């Protein structure tokens, strides 16, 4: 389908904050550490089944560490966002790439969320919802001050744009 007016969707302008890589790595490590610890403790306590508990623990640990080393850097390259006067544009996903676009006039709420880990890394997640049950846009891993500014700017822009959002 490459006609003379073939077009493609360009990636959004802005990358997320560099600290997001650290945040994602910590999340990966925690997600790996919990089952590995459980299996490891059980393996240390239950002698007869030691091998069959420690083997999956080792496999899980290796897989988790590989993911920790590999994915966050990739995510950092592909997670991007952009806000213009007319629309919000977010792209996420490494293997399953997803680009979401919502016009200002249809935005209903703008939320800023900071989990405990995000606070540690001074990051925040901005969620932009529209009237659609499946149309929410999430920008993860923004610098928390930038996120607050962004939420404020979006709220102001939304207020200035007419429309009933449905």
């Amino acid at each position, binding site marked *: 389908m490459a006609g003379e007016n*073939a*077009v493609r969707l360009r990636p959004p302008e802005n990358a997320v904050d560099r600290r997001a890589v650290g945040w994602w790595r910590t999340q990966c490590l925690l997600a790996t550490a919990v089952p590995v610890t459980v299996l490891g403790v059980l393996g240390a306590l239950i002698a007869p089944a030691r091998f069959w508990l420690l083997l999956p623990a080792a496999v899980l640990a290796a897989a988790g560490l590989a993911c920790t080393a590999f994915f966050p850097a990739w995510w950092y390259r592909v997670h991007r966002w952009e806000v213009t006067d007319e629309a919000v544009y977010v792209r996420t996903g490494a293997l*399953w790439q*997803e*680009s979401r*676009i919502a016009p200002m006039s249809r935005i209903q709420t703008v939320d800023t969320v900071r989990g405990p880990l995000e606070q540690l890394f001074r990051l925040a997640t901005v969620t932009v919802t*529209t009237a659609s049950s499946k*149309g929410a846009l999430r920008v993860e891993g923004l610098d928390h001050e930038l996120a607050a500014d962004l939420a404020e700017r979006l709220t102001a822009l939304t207020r200035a744009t007419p429309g009933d959002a*449905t």
Partner: protein
Amino acid sequence: MTGGPEGEWRRLDPRTLLVTAAVLCGVAAGAGVPVAAGLSGGRPLWQAVGWVLAGAALLVACGTAADWIRCRRTRYLIGPERIDLHTGLLLLKHRSLARDRIRSVDLTANPLQRLLGLTKVRIGTGESTGGGESTLELELVTRAEGERLRRELLARPAASGTDPAHDGTLAVLDPRWIRYAPVSFVAPALGGAAAGAVMQVSEWFGAQAEVIDWIGDRFETVSLPWMIADLVLLATLAGAVGALGLWVEMWWNFRLEREPGGTLRVRRGLLTSRSVTLEERRLRGVERVEPLGVRLFGAARLDAVATGLTEDDDEKHTDLKALLPAAPRAVADRVAAEVLGETASPTSAPLAAHPRAARGRRLRRALAAVLLPAAVLAALGALLTPVLLYVAAGWTAVLVPLAVALALDAYRSLGHALSGGHLVTRSGTVRRSTVALRRTGIIGWTVKQSYFQRRAGLLTLTATTAAGEGAYDVLDAGEAQGLGLADRAVPGLLAPFLVPAETPEARPTSR
């Protein structure tokens, strides 16, 4: 505590109690028979019956008393601007809806309620958020009161561009449409349910073995495969009869009308009468649904894509969005055009086909779904017993052609178009669905590309909307094709983010 001249605090109809008592009697009878049968195993029959009757009386009395309290404590007021509802004994609930937010007033009455001239009223706002909190239910009021509420609450100044020429009946039931009832998916489901019910009831009475023996005796003279075939045929027949009955009950007296003031009204039902009113302001499009069986007979049904039909109550959801039962496709297309106010029917618009790569994806997926289990079976067969090898061979021989046929049909079903003010997208094979979505109702785009889609130059374009399922997909369109469609459907939204592709292979990769 009385309102202005427009209304006063009203209560539910006291005959509600009769309905509740009757329903509870039915429940008690339904539960009592198997319980009595079970109890009579260990003790004399009169004792078992006595216990059950006492339990039933207690259930009916308590239930009715509780409902009496509910009735006494429930009252509502239709004010000039708001409607208020007070309910609850311990937990007092006070709900208030602004009248200009009311988008639907639906009446339902089952046979018992109809006999007593009562009806259930559901007053809904267009909000999809907040779940059930945005609807008020009045259970039950007289039919006259229900009609009065419907008229009064939905009466709008007929200013918003309504065209009297378009008012009136859009579709009435053609009894010949009943021929599509047995080919729907309801028939086999009902057949299976009937067979299951026979087994279950016989088990209650401890007679399951006898029933099986009796069936065995009937088929003494024929071989086992024939017996199975006969039984399946019998169940199918029972299912078909059940589907016909269900169709009559659901769709009898069906009538789709456009009323002055911009509302659509669907009335239907033989025993349980249903009246669903839909404000056209809420309508974002229609969905033409063709389940495989119905499609083979050239028929289709119509559902509304409207805001405010919450997804949490699935059964009511399907009940509320139905616009037309399975009818000849031409009728469905005509009704769709009239409902949407288009001159040319969007659902029958010629559709642009999707790239051939989409066909490959479908074929690969279908073959994988068949061959992976076959490979597992074959591997197990090689290790354990050769019987599994034959099963694997049979499985492959039967299912591969079927899977390929379905995959090719799924590819043929793919398509999209812009027809007047609507975006049209079609997909699916077992349940082929054509959605015509109002372009002004699109509130955002999602472009999804898996790794394999990127390699094949495909993308899935999703239009998000406040109505219906919240998002409708254009599956596996070509990259430029899909983006072009999105750009034309909602001009200006996507354009700032589009750049010319350098080569056919140019893929949106990140820096």
